[in-house]
Each structure stands twice: as structure tokens, then as C-alpha cells.
């Protein structure tokens, strides 16, 4: 896309502009939660780069400097804590009548060594259910009409290998693993529920990506992980709805 834009004479720094980059139709729209940094921010960046319109959810928009760096007419930043269902409803209202091609439920959290046996409170555990499970359902409920009215109709849940029963682990990280396993179940359930509306639902493990959440202790960069997931999102057949994949397309066991 960059080379295309450059070839027709726009400077590269105008890539994020209001010009129609996509001749012959409306550019798609994505909604991304947890968009202030890491994987969410990279989804926003790549979709903008491809000319999409993006609605980015962040708990503290004022502090989201990564999103500020991407500012343009096609990017709207919304105050969104997915554990706050009032904020989700407000986002849903603001998008009424706007088709949403891809919803990326990315907002997530992890409390490091306090995930292990005997180390976490019920409140901390419930907070992860709010963000990883209830918030995802609430986003889908709030945006379903916009999603169903779009061309691509995709719901993408960012899960984890930690939520997989078949993925080798050495010890339990209870809040994270249980909520991601439950998210995987929700993915399968929604795939069935929304099949007759033509909505494709999938979950991904993004890999162990170098982000703030992982202390950047990885060679896998968001560019590659998100690039892989976006290609899969775009290419997945509707009849494969309810699937769990690695960012590179490998099948994940439940």
C-alpha cells in the first residue's frame, strides 16, 4: 500500500489521509479494543496503513501516545474500558449505522507471578473474567448490528496458548488460563450463534510477542504477529468460523 500511494504521487507521510485509497468501494472499518499499545496498537497501525477506518478503544485516550502518533481523519479514539458496560454501550450508540467489518477484541491483562497457585485474590481473578470474557461478549452484543451490516463480518478474539488445554505448560496461571479458556469457549459458541448472520468468529494466540505485557522479552515483534493474524482474518472462509489458530496459521488445540 505504501508503494501504491507513493507511486501516484502522495508523500508517504500523507498515507494516513482522508483520500480514498480504495477505488470502487468504501474502505472497510475495524474496531480494536486495548488499542493504546502492544498488539492492539499494531492492529490499528496496520489497518490504517491499508487505508481502513479504525475506531480504537483505550482506557485513557489522553495518555495513549502511540495512538496520538497515528492521528488522522480515519482514526477515532474512544474512551473504552471493556469492563465498563456503560462505555461499551456508548461506543455501540456512536457506531449505530456504521458497518464494522472487523471487531478485534484485544484488550487483556496479566498479573505476572500473582497468577500462580495461592497467589491471587478472587477480585483479581474476576477482573480478568470482566476483561477477557464478559467484556468481549458485551462488545459483540453492542456491535452486532454494525458487524452484520458490514461486508467482511469478522469477530477476532485475541486469546492465548495459555487458554489451550493441549498447549504444553509447566505450571498454572489460574486467572489468565481460565479466562482465556472460557474466551475460547465463547468463540465457539458465538460462531454457532452468529452463523446465520454470516458472521465469522475466530480466536488467535498471537504468540509470545514483545510488548509491555511480556517485558519485551521476545524476538517476535508485533509487526509479524499482527501481520500474520490480519492475513488470516481476511482469508478465513466463513465455514471455518469457530477456529483457534496461532498467528502464523497453525491450528491450536482447544
Amino acid at each position: 500500500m505504501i508503494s501504491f500511494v507513493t507511486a501516484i504521487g502522495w508523500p508517504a507521510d500523507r498515507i494516513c489521509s482522508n483520500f480514498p485509497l480504495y477505488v470502487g468501494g468504501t474502505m472497510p472499518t475495524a474496531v480494536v479494543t486495548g488499542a493504546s499499545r502492544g498488539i492492539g496498537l499494531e492492529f490499528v497501525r496496520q489497518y490504517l496503513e491499508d487505508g481502513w477506518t479504525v475506531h480504537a478503544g483505550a482506557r485513557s485516550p489522553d495518555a495513549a501516545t502511540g495512538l496520538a502518533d497515528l492521528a488522522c481523519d480515519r482514526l477515532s479514539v474512544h474512551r473504552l474500558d471493556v469492563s465498563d458496560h456503560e462505555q461499551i454501550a456508548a461506543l455501540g450508540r456512536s457506531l449505530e449505522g456504521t458497518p464494522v467489518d472487523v471487531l478485534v477484541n484485544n484488550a487483556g491483562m496479566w498479573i505476572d507471578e500473582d497468577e500462580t497457585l495461592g497467589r491471587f485474590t478472587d477480585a483479581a481473578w474476576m477482573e480478568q473474567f470482566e476483561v477477557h470474557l464478559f467484556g468481549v461478549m458485551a462488545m459483540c452484543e453492542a456491535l452486532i448490528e454494525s458487524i452484520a451490516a458490514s461486508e467482511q463480518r469478522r469477530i477476532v478474539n485475541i486469546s492465548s496458548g495459555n487458554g489451550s488445554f493441549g498447549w504444553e505448560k509447566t505450571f498454572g496461571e489460574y486467572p489468565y488460563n481460565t479466562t482465556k479458556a472460557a474466551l475460547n469457549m465463547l468463540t465457539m459458541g458465538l460462531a454457532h450463534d452468529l452463523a446465520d448472520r454470516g458472521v465469522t468468529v475466530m480466536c488467535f494466540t498471537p504468540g509470545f510477542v514483545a510488548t509491555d505485557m511480556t517485558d519485551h522479552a521476545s524476538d517476535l515483534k508485533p509487526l509479524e504477529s499482527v501481520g500474520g493474524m490480519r492475513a488470516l482474518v481476511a482469508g478465513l472462509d466463513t465455514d471455518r468460523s469457530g477456529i483457534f489458530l496461532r498467528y502464523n496459521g497453525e491450528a491450536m488445540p482447544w
Partner: protein
Amino acid sequence: MVTSTALITGANRGIGLEFARQYAAEGWRVHACCREPEEASDLTAALAGRNGVIHRLDVTQEHSIHTLVEALEDEALDVLVNNAGVIGGEHQDFGDIDYAMWRTTIRTNVMGPYRVAEALLDRLDAGRQRVIANVSSLMGSITDNGSGGDHIYRTSKTALNMVTACLAMDLRERGLHVVSFHPGWVATDMGGASAPVTPEQSTAGMRRRIAGVGAEQSGRFYNFDGPELAW
């Protein structure tokens, strides 16, 4: 002969009551737990003349679990049956989700079993069989979900299965074994009168499996009548 000991949650009716009845009838010492002991007339009758104790326990309340642990003093436990559970209410369909009920269901079906197990690890260490049996459901199997809906109940049982998998991993070296069960579609208050499996059949099958659980079986998901199930 050394007496074996079981602790059962949600023991006032259904499958929990049947676990208490069967273990007690076989001469086990039974700690039968329920929220309202004074209303648990069937349980009281089942344990009459047996080696059983009824405890008040709400698995969602930390202080309630603490009181139970105190009451057990230094007694060893062979088998913990995490049976207490709820179905999650009437509003579980997409577009009609009752989030307050979802939270309540997670507290009872996921956090409760974890907290009870965590609080009783020392008691289980002192036992001989050292089995934690979580009464889950095939509804929690992602592989088996061919119809959608029932999101509250399904996700709670998937999460409970992940508790099973994690505990099995963490307790392996300690010699404790953890399994999940699908009890079948059982004719109880929860399952309804038309269900094809009786509580007696379901419980007898699960007890047979529990008796044979070792390191090889730990961390797995079993149907009440024996076969392993997909997650």
C-alpha cells in the same frame, strides 16, 4: 481397616447427595457440605447411623471455607468432590446475557471449587487416595459445543476444566490427583425428571473412576461411565 474419608460440596441434593449416600453406605467417613444444613433433610436421612458430619458451606464465601477447614482440624481427606454448582439462570443467550448472573455463576462454579481445593490441600496431603474430583459438564467441552447458546453455564464449566488442568499440573509432584467429570444428563432438580441417567448410576460410575485415579489419569476429563472426553 483404615477408614477412608470424603468431603462433598453441594451435598444436600442431586449428585452431591448421592455421593454422600454411597460413600457413607460403604463405610467411609463423609463430610457433607451444603449452604443450609437445617433444610437438608434428605442428607440428614442418608447419613443417619453412618459415619457422617454435615457442615454449613457456601463455596463463594472465604470465611465459610475457613470455618470448614477449622472444623476439620487435622483430619485426613482421601477424596474431595467439588460438586456444588449452579446452572446460570434463564438469560444466557446472545443479546440477552445477564452479566450479574454470569459473575455469580463464575464465583460458584469456578472460583468456589478452586478455593475449596486450595484450602484443603494439606488435608488431602495427609490422605491416601489424594483425589480432587471436579463435577464439570460436557457443556464445558469446547470440542463438543455444536450448538452455541448457554454461554454462562458453558464458559463456567470450561473455566472449571482449566482449573482441573492447572491443579493437576501444579500438584503432580505433591502426589495429588485432579480430574473433571461429566456426570451425564442426570435426573436431578438441575437435570429434570426426563433425564436418562439416575443419580445412582452417575455417582457409582464416577466413584469407580475416582477409585482408580492416579498420576496417569490426573488432569483428564472423564464421562461418568468411564471414557475420557475431549476438552
